[in-house]
Protein backbone atom coordinates (compact mmCIF):
# COMPACT_ATOMS: atom_id res chain seq x y z
CA UNK A 1 0.00 0.00 0.00
CA UNK A 2 2.75 2.45 1.01
CA UNK A 3 4.69 1.60 -2.15
CA UNK A 4 1.60 2.30 -4.21
CA UNK A 5 1.27 5.67 -2.51
CA UNK A 6 4.92 6.46 -3.20
CA UNK A 7 4.34 5.60 -6.84
CA UNK A 8 1.32 7.90 -6.97
CA UNK A 9 3.26 10.72 -5.30
CA UNK A 10 6.14 10.29 -7.75
CA UNK A 11 3.71 10.43 -10.64
CA UNK A 12 2.13 13.69 -9.42
CA UNK A 13 5.51 15.25 -8.79
CA UNK A 14 6.94 14.19 -12.13
CA UNK A 15 4.05 15.97 -13.83
CA UNK A 16 4.59 19.03 -11.66
CA UNK A 17 8.31 19.14 -12.37
CA UNK A 18 7.73 18.87 -16.11
CA UNK A 19 5.22 21.71 -15.81
CA UNK A 20 7.83 23.73 -13.92
CA UNK A 21 10.34 23.13 -16.71
CA UNK A 22 7.90 24.44 -19.28
CA UNK A 23 6.75 27.30 -17.06
CA UNK A 24 10.22 28.80 -16.65
CA UNK A 25 10.40 29.41 -20.39
CA UNK A 26 7.43 31.80 -20.30
CA UNK A 27 8.00 35.54 -20.26
CA UNK A 28 6.20 38.16 -18.17
CA UNK A 29 3.58 38.86 -20.79
CA UNK A 30 2.66 35.21 -21.27
CA UNK A 31 2.56 34.72 -17.50
CA UNK A 32 0.34 37.74 -16.99
CA UNK A 33 -2.06 36.53 -19.66
CA UNK A 34 -2.49 33.25 -17.76
CA UNK A 35 -3.06 35.10 -14.47
CA UNK A 36 -5.65 37.38 -16.02
CA UNK A 37 -7.53 34.46 -17.56
CA UNK A 38 -7.62 32.63 -14.22
CA UNK A 39 -8.78 35.78 -12.45
CA UNK A 40 -11.63 36.25 -14.92
CA UNK A 41 -12.73 32.61 -14.75
CA UNK A 42 -12.54 32.49 -10.96
CA UNK A 43 -14.29 35.82 -10.51
CA UNK A 44 -17.04 34.92 -12.97
CA UNK A 45 -17.73 31.75 -10.96
CA UNK A 46 -17.59 33.47 -7.56
CA UNK A 47 -21.28 32.97 -6.74
CA UNK A 48 -21.59 29.36 -7.87
CA UNK A 49 -18.40 28.36 -6.04
CA UNK A 50 -19.48 30.19 -2.88
CA UNK A 51 -22.83 28.39 -2.83
CA UNK A 52 -21.13 25.09 -3.52
CA UNK A 53 -18.64 25.61 -0.68
CA UNK A 54 -21.35 26.54 1.79
CA UNK A 55 -23.56 23.60 0.81
CA UNK A 56 -20.69 21.15 1.01
CA UNK A 57 -19.18 22.31 4.29
CA UNK A 58 -22.28 23.57 6.07
CA UNK A 59 -20.07 26.41 7.28
CA UNK A 60 -20.65 30.13 7.01
CA UNK A 61 -22.90 32.24 4.80
CA UNK A 62 -22.74 31.89 1.01
CA UNK A 63 -23.23 35.61 0.36
CA UNK A 64 -20.15 36.30 2.48
CA UNK A 65 -18.22 33.57 0.72
CA UNK A 66 -18.94 35.46 -2.51
CA UNK A 67 -17.12 38.43 -1.00
CA UNK A 68 -14.22 36.20 0.00
CA UNK A 69 -14.05 34.80 -3.53
CA UNK A 70 -14.10 38.36 -4.85
CA UNK A 71 -11.25 39.41 -2.56
CA UNK A 72 -9.27 36.33 -3.53
CA UNK A 73 -9.65 37.07 -7.23
CA UNK A 74 -10.37 40.74 -7.97
CA UNK A 75 -8.31 42.32 -5.18
CA UNK A 76 -5.48 39.82 -5.39
CA UNK A 77 -5.34 40.22 -9.16
CA UNK A 78 -5.31 44.02 -8.91
CA UNK A 79 -2.54 43.78 -6.32
CA UNK A 80 -0.25 41.48 -8.31
CA UNK A 81 -1.06 42.25 -11.93
CA UNK A 82 1.66 44.86 -12.43
CA UNK A 83 4.26 43.17 -10.28
CA UNK A 84 7.36 41.98 -12.08
CA UNK A 85 7.89 38.31 -11.36
CA UNK A 86 9.83 37.14 -14.41
CA UNK A 87 13.44 37.86 -15.32
CA UNK A 88 14.99 41.21 -14.36
CA UNK A 89 12.71 42.79 -11.77
CA UNK A 90 14.96 45.65 -10.70
CA UNK A 91 18.27 47.23 -11.59
CA UNK A 92 19.71 49.82 -9.23
CA UNK A 93 22.55 51.73 -10.81
CA UNK A 94 23.41 53.36 -7.49
CA UNK A 95 24.15 50.11 -5.69
CA UNK A 96 25.07 48.16 -8.81
CA UNK A 97 22.64 45.42 -7.85
CA UNK A 98 20.26 43.88 -10.32
CA UNK A 99 17.54 41.51 -9.19
CA UNK A 100 16.33 38.56 -11.24
CA UNK A 101 13.22 36.58 -10.31
CA UNK A 102 13.24 32.83 -10.67
CA UNK A 103 10.38 30.45 -9.99
CA UNK A 104 10.68 28.12 -7.01
CA UNK A 105 9.29 24.92 -8.50
CA UNK A 106 6.29 22.81 -7.48
CA UNK A 107 4.38 24.28 -4.56
CA UNK A 108 2.32 22.13 -2.25
CA UNK A 109 -0.67 24.14 -1.05
CA UNK A 110 -2.89 23.11 1.82
CA UNK A 111 -6.24 24.88 2.08
CA UNK A 112 -8.68 25.09 4.99
CA UNK A 113 -12.34 24.17 5.27
CA UNK A 114 -13.25 27.65 6.51
CA UNK A 115 -12.24 29.58 3.38
CA UNK A 116 -12.04 26.78 0.82
CA UNK A 117 -12.69 28.09 -2.68
CA UNK A 118 -11.26 31.54 -1.98
CA UNK A 119 -7.98 30.14 -0.63
CA UNK A 120 -7.67 27.79 -3.61
CA UNK A 121 -8.13 30.68 -6.07
CA UNK A 122 -5.78 32.92 -4.11
CA UNK A 123 -3.01 30.34 -4.00
CA UNK A 124 -3.44 29.43 -7.66
CA UNK A 125 -3.18 33.09 -8.70
CA UNK A 126 0.00 33.78 -6.75
CA UNK A 127 1.59 30.52 -7.89
CA UNK A 128 0.77 31.12 -11.55
CA UNK A 129 2.02 34.72 -11.31
CA UNK A 130 5.37 33.34 -10.20
CA UNK A 131 5.42 30.44 -12.71
CA UNK A 132 5.22 27.78 -10.05
CA UNK A 133 3.10 24.67 -10.57
CA UNK A 134 0.75 24.06 -7.67
CA UNK A 135 -0.45 20.84 -6.05
CA UNK A 136 -3.48 21.46 -3.87
CA UNK A 137 -4.53 19.43 -0.88
CA UNK A 138 -7.90 20.69 0.26
CA UNK A 139 -9.62 19.90 3.53
CA UNK A 140 -11.62 16.71 2.97
CA UNK A 141 -14.80 18.51 4.04
CA UNK A 142 -14.45 20.89 1.10
CA UNK A 143 -12.92 18.56 -1.48
CA UNK A 144 -15.74 18.83 -4.03
CA UNK A 145 -15.91 22.62 -4.18
CA UNK A 146 -12.12 22.97 -4.13
CA UNK A 147 -11.72 20.44 -6.95
CA UNK A 148 -14.28 22.35 -9.00
CA UNK A 149 -12.49 25.62 -8.28
CA UNK A 150 -9.16 24.15 -9.33
CA UNK A 151 -10.74 22.71 -12.48
CA UNK A 152 -12.12 26.11 -13.52
CA UNK A 153 -8.77 27.79 -12.90
CA UNK A 154 -6.84 25.03 -14.67
CA UNK A 155 -8.99 25.24 -17.79
CA UNK A 156 -8.57 29.00 -17.87
CA UNK A 157 -4.82 28.60 -17.40
CA UNK A 158 -4.51 26.10 -20.24
CA UNK A 159 -6.59 28.32 -22.50
CA UNK A 160 -4.07 31.10 -21.94
CA UNK A 161 -1.09 28.89 -22.67
CA UNK A 162 -0.10 27.56 -19.26
CA UNK A 163 1.76 24.25 -19.05
CA UNK A 164 -0.16 21.02 -18.68
CA UNK A 165 -0.40 19.89 -15.03
CA UNK A 166 0.44 23.35 -13.71
CA UNK A 167 -2.51 22.90 -11.32
CA UNK A 168 -3.15 19.50 -9.75
CA UNK A 169 -5.44 18.38 -6.97
CA UNK A 170 -4.20 15.84 -4.44
CA UNK A 171 -6.89 13.19 -3.88
CA UNK A 172 -8.59 13.96 -0.58
CA UNK A 173 -8.85 11.60 2.32
CA UNK A 174 -5.45 10.08 3.08
CA UNK A 175 -3.37 11.89 5.66
CA UNK A 176 -0.48 9.50 4.98
CA UNK A 177 -0.50 10.41 1.30
CA UNK A 178 -0.70 14.13 2.01
CA UNK A 179 2.31 13.90 4.29
CA UNK A 180 4.15 11.85 1.70
CA UNK A 181 3.63 14.52 -0.96
CA UNK A 182 4.50 17.24 1.54
CA UNK A 183 7.86 15.60 2.24
CA UNK A 184 8.59 14.68 -1.38
CA UNK A 185 12.06 15.88 -2.44
CA UNK A 186 10.66 17.48 -5.59
CA UNK A 187 8.41 19.86 -3.63
CA UNK A 188 10.01 23.30 -3.64
CA UNK A 189 7.80 24.93 -0.99
CA UNK A 190 4.81 24.16 1.19
CA UNK A 191 2.18 26.85 1.51
CA UNK A 192 0.09 25.64 4.42
CA UNK A 193 -2.93 27.42 5.83
CA UNK A 194 -4.72 25.67 8.64
CA UNK A 195 -4.50 24.43 12.20
CA UNK A 196 -1.44 24.07 14.42
CA UNK A 197 -1.00 20.36 13.62
CA UNK A 198 -0.95 20.98 9.90
CA UNK A 199 1.50 23.85 10.14
CA UNK A 200 3.78 21.75 12.36
CA UNK A 201 3.62 18.89 9.85
CA UNK A 202 4.59 21.32 7.08
CA UNK A 203 7.60 22.63 8.98
CA UNK A 204 8.62 19.11 9.98
CA UNK A 205 8.49 17.78 6.44
CA UNK A 206 12.07 18.70 5.57
CA UNK A 207 10.92 21.00 2.77
CA UNK A 208 10.86 24.80 2.97
CA UNK A 209 7.48 25.95 4.24
CA UNK A 210 5.33 28.99 4.76
CA UNK A 211 2.94 27.72 7.36
CA UNK A 212 0.25 29.91 8.83
CA UNK A 213 -1.67 28.82 11.86
CA UNK A 214 -4.41 29.95 14.22
CA UNK A 215 -5.11 33.30 15.81
CA UNK A 216 -6.78 34.54 18.98
CA UNK A 217 -7.43 38.16 18.20
CA UNK A 218 -7.97 40.63 21.06
CA UNK A 219 -9.59 43.97 20.34
CA UNK A 220 -9.21 46.89 22.66
CA UNK A 221 -11.80 49.67 22.62
CA UNK A 222 -10.11 52.70 24.13
CA UNK A 223 -11.97 55.47 25.93
CA UNK A 224 -11.01 57.76 23.05
CA UNK A 225 -12.85 55.56 20.54
CA UNK A 226 -16.17 56.22 18.85
CA UNK A 227 -18.07 53.44 20.61
CA UNK A 228 -21.06 52.91 18.24
CA UNK A 229 -18.63 52.90 15.31
CA UNK A 230 -16.33 50.41 17.06
CA UNK A 231 -19.18 48.08 17.97
CA UNK A 232 -20.72 48.11 14.50
CA UNK A 233 -17.32 47.35 12.95
CA UNK A 234 -16.67 44.48 15.34
CA UNK A 235 -20.09 43.02 14.54
CA UNK A 236 -19.47 43.40 10.80
CA UNK A 237 -16.22 41.50 11.22
CA UNK A 238 -17.21 38.80 13.69
CA UNK A 239 -20.47 37.94 11.95
CA UNK A 240 -18.79 37.88 8.52
CA UNK A 241 -19.19 34.33 7.18
CA UNK A 242 -20.17 33.45 10.78
CA UNK A 243 -16.72 34.26 12.12
CA UNK A 244 -14.67 31.83 10.05
CA UNK A 245 -11.76 34.16 9.31
CA UNK A 246 -8.84 33.44 11.62
CA UNK A 247 -8.25 37.19 11.92
CA UNK A 248 -11.75 37.76 13.32
CA UNK A 249 -12.10 39.27 16.78
CA UNK A 250 -12.14 36.76 19.63
CA UNK A 251 -12.28 39.09 22.64
CA UNK A 252 -13.32 42.65 23.27
CA UNK A 253 -11.49 44.42 26.08
CA UNK A 254 -12.66 47.75 27.51
CA UNK A 255 -12.01 49.90 30.53
CA UNK A 256 -14.62 49.61 33.27
CA UNK A 257 -15.58 53.25 32.76
CA UNK A 258 -17.04 52.61 29.30
CA UNK A 259 -18.02 48.94 29.77
CA UNK A 260 -21.73 49.54 30.23
CA UNK A 261 -21.83 51.91 27.28
CA UNK A 262 -20.14 49.29 25.07
CA UNK A 263 -22.39 46.55 26.46
CA UNK A 264 -25.53 48.60 25.72
CA UNK A 265 -24.32 49.34 22.23
CA UNK A 266 -23.77 45.65 21.45
CA UNK A 267 -27.30 44.91 22.72
CA UNK A 268 -28.73 47.81 20.72
CA UNK A 269 -27.04 46.39 17.61
CA UNK A 270 -28.68 42.97 18.08
CA UNK A 271 -26.05 41.08 20.04
CA UNK A 272 -26.77 38.86 23.03
CA UNK A 273 -24.94 38.69 26.35
CA UNK A 274 -24.90 35.14 27.68
CA UNK A 275 -25.83 34.36 31.29
CA UNK A 276 -23.17 32.57 33.41
CA UNK A 277 -24.95 29.24 32.80
CA UNK A 278 -25.14 29.90 29.05
CA UNK A 279 -21.44 30.80 29.06
CA UNK A 280 -20.72 27.40 30.64
CA UNK A 281 -22.86 25.62 28.02
CA UNK A 282 -21.35 27.45 25.04
CA UNK A 283 -17.84 27.00 26.44
CA UNK A 284 -18.40 23.26 26.79
CA UNK A 285 -19.67 23.06 23.22
CA UNK A 286 -17.02 25.33 21.70
CA UNK A 287 -13.87 23.85 23.16
CA UNK A 288 -13.46 20.09 23.51
CA UNK A 289 -12.55 19.20 27.08
CA UNK A 290 -10.23 16.28 26.29
CA UNK A 291 -8.07 18.04 23.70
CA UNK A 292 -8.64 21.69 24.53
CA UNK A 293 -9.17 22.35 20.82
CA UNK A 294 -12.03 24.00 18.99
CA UNK A 295 -15.04 21.81 18.23
CA UNK A 296 -15.35 21.62 14.42
CA UNK A 297 -19.15 21.56 14.75
CA UNK A 298 -19.23 25.12 16.05
CA UNK A 299 -17.13 26.53 13.20
CA UNK A 300 -19.07 28.90 10.97
CA UNK A 301 -22.46 28.32 12.64
CA UNK A 302 -24.82 31.20 13.33
CA UNK A 303 -25.47 32.56 16.83
CA UNK A 304 -28.97 31.04 16.81
CA UNK A 305 -27.79 27.57 15.77
CA UNK A 306 -25.09 27.62 18.46
CA UNK A 307 -27.63 28.61 21.10
CA UNK A 308 -29.99 25.84 19.97
CA UNK A 309 -27.20 23.26 20.05
CA UNK A 310 -26.41 24.37 23.59
CA UNK A 311 -30.04 24.02 24.66
CA UNK A 312 -31.21 27.61 24.98
CA UNK A 313 -32.68 30.21 22.65
CA UNK A 314 -31.76 33.74 21.65
CA UNK A 315 -33.88 36.39 19.92
CA UNK A 316 -34.26 35.97 16.16
CA UNK A 317 -31.66 37.97 14.26
CA UNK A 318 -29.04 37.77 17.02
CA UNK A 319 -25.72 38.54 15.40
CA UNK A 320 -23.17 37.65 18.07
CA UNK A 321 -23.11 35.86 21.41
CA UNK A 322 -21.03 37.71 23.99
CA UNK A 323 -19.58 36.08 27.08
CA UNK A 324 -18.41 38.33 29.89
CA UNK A 325 -15.44 36.52 31.39
CA UNK A 326 -13.32 36.98 34.53
CA UNK A 327 -10.13 35.46 33.24
CA UNK A 328 -8.01 34.03 30.46
CA UNK A 329 -6.88 30.44 30.03
CA UNK A 330 -8.03 26.84 30.08
CA UNK A 331 -10.60 27.42 32.83
CA UNK A 332 -12.25 29.98 30.55
CA UNK A 333 -12.85 28.08 27.29
CA UNK A 334 -14.30 31.08 25.50
CA UNK A 335 -11.08 33.01 25.98
CA UNK A 336 -9.62 30.77 23.23
CA UNK A 337 -10.12 31.05 19.49
CA UNK A 338 -13.66 30.16 18.35
CA UNK A 339 -14.29 30.54 14.63
CA UNK A 340 -17.97 31.38 15.11
CA UNK A 341 -19.94 34.48 16.17
CA UNK A 342 -18.98 34.11 19.84
CA UNK A 343 -17.01 36.90 21.51
CA UNK A 344 -15.45 37.11 24.94
CA UNK A 345 -16.03 40.43 26.71
CA UNK A 346 -13.67 41.82 29.34
CA UNK A 347 -14.30 44.98 31.36
CA UNK A 348 -10.93 45.88 32.90
CA UNK A 349 -10.26 48.04 35.95
CA UNK A 350 -8.19 50.57 34.01
CA UNK A 351 -6.12 51.07 30.89
CA UNK A 352 -3.09 49.13 32.13
CA UNK A 353 -5.21 46.16 33.20
CA UNK A 354 -6.97 46.22 29.84
CA UNK A 355 -3.69 46.08 27.94
CA UNK A 356 -2.39 43.29 30.21
CA UNK A 357 -5.54 41.31 29.42
CA UNK A 358 -4.95 41.84 25.71
CA UNK A 359 -1.40 40.52 26.10
CA UNK A 360 -2.71 37.40 27.88
CA UNK A 361 -5.29 36.82 25.17
CA UNK A 362 -2.78 37.45 22.42
CA UNK A 363 -0.44 34.83 23.92
CA UNK A 364 -3.26 32.28 24.36
CA UNK A 365 -2.84 30.49 21.05
CA UNK A 366 -2.69 33.51 18.79
CA UNK A 367 0.86 34.76 19.06
CA UNK A 368 1.98 36.64 15.99
CA UNK A 369 -1.39 36.70 14.26
CA UNK A 370 -3.48 39.87 14.54
CA UNK A 371 -4.85 42.33 17.09
CA UNK A 372 -7.23 45.25 16.88
CA UNK A 373 -7.64 48.62 18.53
CA UNK A 374 -10.33 51.28 18.35
CA UNK A 375 -8.91 54.60 19.52
CA UNK A 376 -8.45 58.19 18.49
CA UNK A 377 -5.44 58.64 20.75
CA UNK A 378 -2.36 58.10 18.61
CA UNK A 379 -0.12 57.54 21.63
CA UNK A 380 -2.28 54.67 22.82
CA UNK A 381 -2.42 53.14 19.34
CA UNK A 382 1.37 53.06 19.19
CA UNK A 383 1.71 51.77 22.76
CA UNK A 384 -0.86 49.01 22.20
CA UNK A 385 0.82 48.03 18.93
CA UNK A 386 4.24 47.86 20.55
CA UNK A 387 2.93 45.57 23.29
CA UNK A 388 1.10 43.11 21.06
CA UNK A 389 2.90 40.19 19.46
CA UNK A 390 0.96 40.37 16.20
CA UNK A 391 1.83 40.55 12.53
CA UNK A 392 -1.01 42.99 11.95
CA UNK A 393 -2.39 45.55 14.38
CA UNK A 394 -5.61 46.71 12.80
CA UNK A 395 -6.70 50.22 13.78
CA UNK A 396 -10.33 51.39 13.80
CA UNK A 397 -11.13 48.64 11.33
CA UNK A 398 -12.88 45.26 11.44
CA UNK A 399 -10.05 42.77 11.98
CA UNK A 400 -11.35 40.08 9.58
CA UNK A 401 -11.45 42.40 6.61
CA UNK A 402 -8.61 44.58 7.90
CA UNK A 403 -6.01 41.85 8.36
CA UNK A 404 -6.83 40.22 5.03
CA UNK A 405 -5.91 43.54 3.43
CA UNK A 406 -6.93 45.49 0.37
CA UNK A 407 -10.36 46.58 1.59
CA UNK A 408 -9.86 48.98 4.50
CA UNK A 409 -6.10 49.49 4.23
CA UNK A 410 -3.19 49.02 1.89
CA UNK A 411 -1.96 45.68 3.22
CA UNK A 412 -1.54 43.22 0.34
CA UNK A 413 -4.79 41.23 0.04
CA UNK A 414 -4.06 37.69 1.16
CA UNK A 415 -5.74 34.60 2.54
CA UNK A 416 -2.52 33.43 4.16
CA UNK A 417 -1.42 35.68 7.00
CA UNK A 418 2.08 35.22 8.35
CA UNK A 419 2.40 35.06 12.15
CA UNK A 420 6.15 35.44 12.57
CA UNK A 421 8.32 33.33 14.78
CA UNK A 422 5.79 33.58 17.61
CA UNK A 423 3.41 31.54 15.51
CA UNK A 424 6.32 29.36 14.32
CA UNK A 425 6.05 31.04 10.92
CA UNK A 426 8.83 32.38 8.78
CA UNK A 427 7.29 35.84 8.28
CA UNK A 428 4.72 38.24 9.72
CA UNK A 429 3.72 39.47 6.28
CA UNK A 430 0.56 38.86 4.30
CA UNK A 431 1.73 36.18 1.92
CA UNK A 432 1.57 37.11 -1.74
CA UNK A 433 3.31 36.50 -5.06
CA UNK A 434 6.60 38.07 -4.05
CA UNK A 435 7.08 35.37 -1.41
CA UNK A 436 7.06 32.73 -4.13
CA UNK A 437 10.11 33.73 -6.13
CA UNK A 438 13.81 33.20 -5.65
CA UNK A 439 15.49 36.55 -6.16
CA UNK A 440 18.95 36.38 -7.60
CA UNK A 441 21.15 39.40 -7.06
CA UNK A 442 23.64 40.34 -9.71
CA UNK A 443 26.25 42.40 -7.86
CA UNK A 444 28.43 44.55 -10.04
CA UNK A 445 31.86 45.55 -8.80
CA UNK A 446 31.60 48.60 -6.55
CA UNK A 447 34.59 48.46 -4.21
CA UNK A 448 34.25 49.67 -0.63
CA UNK A 449 37.14 52.14 -0.72
CA UNK A 450 36.95 52.84 3.00
CA UNK A 451 37.62 49.20 3.80
CA UNK A 452 40.14 48.61 1.05
CA UNK A 453 42.19 51.67 2.03
CA UNK A 454 43.04 50.18 5.42
CA UNK A 455 46.41 48.52 5.47
CA UNK A 456 45.26 44.91 5.78
CA UNK A 457 48.43 43.76 7.55
CA UNK A 458 47.19 45.81 10.51
CA UNK A 459 44.34 43.33 11.04
CA UNK A 460 47.00 40.81 12.06
CA UNK A 461 48.26 43.06 14.86
CA UNK A 462 46.40 41.94 18.01
CA UNK A 463 47.41 45.10 19.88
CA UNK A 464 45.15 47.20 17.64
CA UNK A 465 41.59 47.31 18.92
CA UNK A 466 38.16 48.04 17.46
CA UNK A 467 38.48 51.76 18.22
CA UNK A 468 41.59 52.00 16.07
CA UNK A 469 39.92 50.30 13.13
CA UNK A 470 36.76 52.40 13.41
CA UNK A 471 38.99 55.49 13.17
CA UNK A 472 40.81 54.03 10.19
CA UNK A 473 37.58 53.03 8.50
CA UNK A 474 35.95 56.43 8.84
CA UNK A 475 39.09 58.50 8.15
CA UNK A 476 38.80 61.10 5.42
CA UNK A 477 41.50 60.68 2.82
Amino acid at each position, binding site marked *: MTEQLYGKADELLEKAVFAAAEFQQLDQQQTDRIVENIFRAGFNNRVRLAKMAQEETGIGIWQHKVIKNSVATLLVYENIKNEKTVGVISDDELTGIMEIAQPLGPIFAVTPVTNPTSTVMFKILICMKTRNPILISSHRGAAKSCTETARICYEAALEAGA*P*EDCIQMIPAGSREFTQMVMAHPKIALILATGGTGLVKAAYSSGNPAIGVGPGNVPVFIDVSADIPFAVSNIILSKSFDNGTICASEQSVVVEQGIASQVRDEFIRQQCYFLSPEEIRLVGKFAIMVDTGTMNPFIVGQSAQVIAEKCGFSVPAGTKILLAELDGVGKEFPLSSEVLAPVLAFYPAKDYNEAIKLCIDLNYLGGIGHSAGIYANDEKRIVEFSTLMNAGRIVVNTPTSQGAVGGIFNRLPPSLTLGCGTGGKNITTENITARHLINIQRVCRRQPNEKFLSIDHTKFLDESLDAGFFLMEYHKNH
Partner: protein
Amino acid sequence: MISFNHDTANNQLTIRFNGRLDTLSCPDIQSAINDKFSKIRKEGKQDGPKVVFNMQEVTFISSSFIRICLTTFHGCGKGNFAILNCDPFLKKTFKIAGLDDLLTVS
Protein backbone atom coordinates in the same frame (compact mmCIF):
# COMPACT_ATOMS: atom_id res chain seq x y z
CA MET B 1 8.97 20.97 -37.36
CA ILE B 2 10.54 17.52 -37.55
CA SER B 3 12.84 15.77 -39.99
CA PHE B 4 14.54 12.37 -39.87
CA ASN B 5 17.91 11.17 -41.02
CA HIS B 6 18.55 7.48 -40.61
CA ASP B 7 22.20 6.51 -40.98
CA THR B 8 21.71 2.82 -41.64
CA ALA B 9 25.42 2.08 -41.66
CA ASN B 10 25.72 3.13 -38.03
CA ASN B 11 22.06 2.44 -37.27
CA GLN B 12 21.64 5.96 -35.91
CA LEU B 13 18.44 7.94 -36.26
CA THR B 14 18.86 11.69 -35.99
CA ILE B 15 15.67 13.63 -35.49
CA ARG B 16 15.92 17.32 -36.11
CA PHE B 17 13.30 19.62 -34.60
CA ASN B 18 12.66 23.28 -35.04
CA GLY B 19 10.54 26.07 -33.58
CA ARG B 20 8.16 25.72 -30.65
CA LEU B 21 7.48 22.18 -29.53
CA ASP B 22 4.30 23.04 -27.66
CA THR B 23 1.46 20.93 -26.33
CA LEU B 24 -0.50 21.23 -29.56
CA SER B 25 2.29 20.03 -31.82
CA CYS B 26 3.52 17.19 -29.59
CA PRO B 27 0.90 14.56 -30.49
CA ASP B 28 1.94 14.89 -34.15
CA ILE B 29 5.60 14.72 -33.18
CA GLN B 30 5.02 11.59 -31.11
CA SER B 31 3.10 9.85 -33.88
CA ALA B 32 5.74 10.81 -36.50
CA ILE B 33 8.43 9.31 -34.27
CA ASN B 34 6.37 6.18 -33.68
CA ASP B 35 5.78 5.78 -37.42
CA LYS B 36 9.48 6.15 -38.12
CA PHE B 37 10.39 3.55 -35.51
CA SER B 38 7.84 1.10 -36.92
CA LYS B 39 9.20 1.64 -40.41
CA ILE B 40 12.79 1.04 -39.29
CA ARG B 41 11.75 -2.07 -37.41
CA LYS B 42 9.90 -3.40 -40.47
CA GLU B 43 12.76 -2.59 -42.85
CA GLY B 44 15.71 -3.66 -40.85
CA LYS B 45 17.05 -6.77 -39.38
CA GLN B 46 19.00 -4.66 -36.96
CA ASP B 47 18.32 -3.90 -33.33
CA GLY B 48 16.53 -0.63 -32.58
CA PRO B 49 18.54 2.40 -33.71
CA LYS B 50 20.51 4.79 -31.57
CA VAL B 51 18.51 8.00 -31.43
CA VAL B 52 19.70 11.60 -31.41
CA PHE B 53 17.39 14.56 -30.92
CA ASN B 54 18.99 17.58 -32.57
CA MET B 55 17.60 20.65 -30.82
CA GLN B 56 19.62 23.31 -32.65
CA GLU B 57 16.59 25.14 -34.02
CA VAL B 58 14.23 24.64 -31.11
CA THR B 59 13.02 27.72 -29.22
CA PHE B 60 10.57 26.25 -26.70
CA ILE B 61 9.71 22.83 -25.29
CA SER B 62 6.52 21.91 -23.49
CA SER B 63 6.11 19.32 -20.78
CA SER B 64 4.60 17.07 -23.48
CA PHE B 65 7.86 17.16 -25.38
CA ILE B 66 9.77 16.33 -22.19
CA ARG B 67 7.50 13.29 -21.92
CA ILE B 68 8.40 12.34 -25.52
CA CYS B 69 12.08 12.48 -24.54
CA LEU B 70 11.41 10.22 -21.58
CA THR B 71 9.39 7.74 -23.65
CA THR B 72 12.08 7.65 -26.31
CA PHE B 73 14.74 7.10 -23.67
CA HIS B 74 12.79 4.18 -22.19
CA GLY B 75 12.38 2.72 -25.69
CA CYS B 76 16.06 2.99 -26.59
CA GLY B 77 17.72 2.28 -23.27
CA LYS B 78 20.57 4.07 -21.58
CA GLY B 79 23.47 4.91 -23.86
CA ASN B 80 21.34 4.78 -26.99
CA PHE B 81 19.65 8.14 -26.76
CA ALA B 82 21.08 11.66 -26.69
CA ILE B 83 19.70 15.18 -26.89
CA LEU B 84 22.17 17.44 -28.64
CA ASN B 85 22.73 21.11 -29.50
CA CYS B 86 20.45 22.57 -26.85
CA ASP B 87 20.85 26.27 -26.27
CA PRO B 88 21.54 27.25 -22.63
CA PHE B 89 17.84 27.93 -21.96
CA LEU B 90 16.85 24.47 -23.13
CA LYS B 91 19.72 22.94 -21.17
CA LYS B 92 18.31 24.60 -18.05
CA THR B 93 14.80 23.39 -18.90
CA PHE B 94 16.01 19.79 -18.94
CA LYS B 95 17.80 20.42 -15.64
CA ILE B 96 14.60 21.72 -14.02
CA ALA B 97 12.68 18.75 -15.40
CA GLY B 98 15.13 16.53 -13.54
CA LEU B 99 16.09 14.67 -16.70
CA ASP B 100 19.62 15.91 -16.97
CA ASP B 101 20.96 13.06 -14.86
CA LEU B 102 18.95 10.42 -16.65
CA LEU B 103 19.44 11.55 -20.24
CA THR B 104 22.47 12.71 -22.14
CA VAL B 105 21.76 16.40 -22.78
CA SER B 106 24.23 18.77 -24.33
